[in-house]
């Protein structure tokens, strides 16, 4: 069983803490002198770089949230001059401003390194054919896997998302051995393979690395069963680096966090207190080697817990559980992040309707479906079918143009969306996690 970087991935905890402390010290110095946002936040707390000496001092530092990135759009939190930035990525499909992340040449090297670890821990080697069906482009999935695949010397197939028929043909003709995509797309592909008449023995797939959306153990079993591969869970978010933040090894006992680059904490999302190992809370990351966009105590909103016991694979890197949910109401629909309030603000701009709505999310044929149920307002109701149909179309177009998501619209009778206690339930998520 290979380990890509035995020196760091199997490092003794004491030594690791000293490396983390040193790297945190450098990161804090960097943001203090290069990012006005952080300097001001630290000064408000009476902190200077000299107050951060060891990793334990991290609790003195302020938190960062997603809105801080939006407020400083596009490059306000960058800690490197633009001449040093060699790559930009951005979050997709949300209203207003996207979240922009920038990488220096060294950041790209770090990203390739952590992705090489990820792929190696899934069992991939230079002899593999890595079939990357994550989207390429502003989304970090495709390119993140791509650089990691090249780093380990595998043959990378940058097929990107969509065009299932071509995916199957290349998978067959090139002899893809490693599949990288979202878990729901993996299931979709499994069904497409079945329908295509291809026999499993005609394909050489042996392992899949799946992430970018929450998935259950049930889904894992289904994927492993249908595709006859090992399904490895990987975790990342573009703000921190993209994929490569954490990954399961072949023992599938939690995701090893690359904590020599991304220092994790678990906090209580209400009190912001740090919680002890084993307790469930919100995952917070501090990037301790990044140059382009270092983030201090970034609140991911993902709920999980950490395990520090040594893993059977020999790695000492802390493991996190599969994410158990979120501490906010963000939905992930076909890889696009969506907050219910974004839907609400689109509805509020339309005078013909009142923002009484309900979002119903489901998974049909392994793909996310989203339906918006919106109440017909009496003042607008004039008994003509054509008028209601065009209203429906207008809502759909407005949502699609500002959210980048195609949402099915259903007009419903007023007050049918209220629950018995009078409080409306905005989101019904029927996908099983």
């Amino acid at each position, binding site marked *: 069983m290979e380990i890509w970087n035995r020196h760091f991935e199997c490092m003794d905890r004491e030594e690791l803490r000293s490396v983390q402390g040193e790297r945190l010290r450098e990161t804090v110095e960097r943001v203090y002198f290069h990012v006005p946002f952080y300097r001001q936040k630290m000064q408000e707390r009476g902190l200077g770089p000299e107050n951060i000496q060891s990793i334990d001092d991290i609790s003195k530092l302020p938190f960062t949230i997603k809105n801080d990135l939006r407020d400083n759009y596009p490059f306000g939190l960058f800690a490197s001059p633009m001449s040093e930035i060699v790559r930009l990525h951005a979050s997709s499909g949300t209203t207003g401003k996207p979240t922009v992340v920038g990488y220096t040449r060294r950041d790209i090297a770090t990203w390739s390194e952590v992705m090489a670890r990820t792929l190696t821990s899934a069992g991939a080697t230079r002899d593999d054919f890595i079939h990357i069906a994550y989207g390429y482009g502003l989304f970090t999935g495709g390119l993140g896997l791509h650089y990691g695949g090249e780093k380990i010397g595998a043959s990378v197939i940058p097929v990107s998302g969509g065009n299932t028929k071509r995916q199957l043909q290349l998978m067959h003709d090139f002899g893809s051995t490693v599949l990288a995509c979202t878990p729901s797309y993996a299931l979709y592909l499994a069904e497409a393979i079945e329908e295509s008449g291809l026999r499993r023995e005609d394909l050489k797939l042996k392992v899949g690395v799946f992430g970018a959306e929450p998935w259950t153990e049930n889904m894992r079993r289904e994927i492993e069963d249908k595709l006859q591969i090992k399904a490895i869970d990987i975790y990342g978010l573009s703000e921190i680096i993209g994929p490569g933040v954490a990954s399961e090894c072949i023992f599938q006992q939690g995701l090893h966090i690359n904590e020599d680059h991304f220092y994790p904490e678990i906090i209580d999302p209400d009190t912001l207190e740090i919680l002890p190992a084993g307790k469930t809370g919100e995952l917070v990351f501090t990037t301790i080697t990044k140059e382009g966009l270092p983030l201090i105590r970034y609140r991911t909103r993902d709920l999980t817990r950490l395990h520090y016991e040594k893993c059977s694979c020999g790695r000492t890197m802390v493991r996190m559980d599969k994410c158990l949910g979120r501490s906010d109401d963000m939905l992930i629909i076909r890889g696009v992040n969506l907050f219910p309030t974004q839907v609400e603000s689109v509805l509020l701009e339309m005078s013909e309707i009142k923002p009484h709505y309900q979002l119903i999310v489901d998974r049909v044929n392994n793909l996310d479906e989203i339906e918006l149920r919106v109440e*017909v307002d*009496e003042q607008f109701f*004039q*008994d*003509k*079918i054509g008028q209601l149909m065009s209203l429906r179309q207008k809502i759909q177009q407005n949502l699609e143009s500002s959210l980048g998501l195609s949402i099915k619209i*259903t007009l419903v*009778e007023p*007050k*049918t969306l209220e629950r018995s206690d009078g409080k409306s339930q905005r989101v019904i998520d029927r996908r099983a996690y």
Partner: protein
Amino acid sequence: MIVHQLSVFLENKSGRLTEVLETLGQENIKITALSVADTSEFGILRMIVSDPVKAKLLLKEKSFTVNLTEVLSIITPNEARYYAKALKILSDIDISIEYTYAFSVGERSVIILRTSNTELAIKALQEHEIELLRASELYKI
């Protein structure tokens, strides 16, 4: 001559039409005519009732989306050519029909019409001596 028709928005789910009718029935509202226009997802129920204002209030209390719509009603012998004649009078002066429904009583047909201009339509039909029904007469049928 304007008749106030009751229009109700209905989701396509079982029991909704029953609920409308039961609500009206409990207060002895009589229904002279009824039609449902439907799409795959919702429908619009249109009714001529004995007391449209009261009916509207009753349904609103039950949280239905309901409105009163101005329509007109004519009565002709129940032969197609009389229906055609009335419609032609309207089309000749560029008044369009948004929807219509009808029913027969003995040898005569009662036709409900929603047009693009109710007042002009009434005037034109009267000029051609088409018999129009007042709301009060209609409710008694």
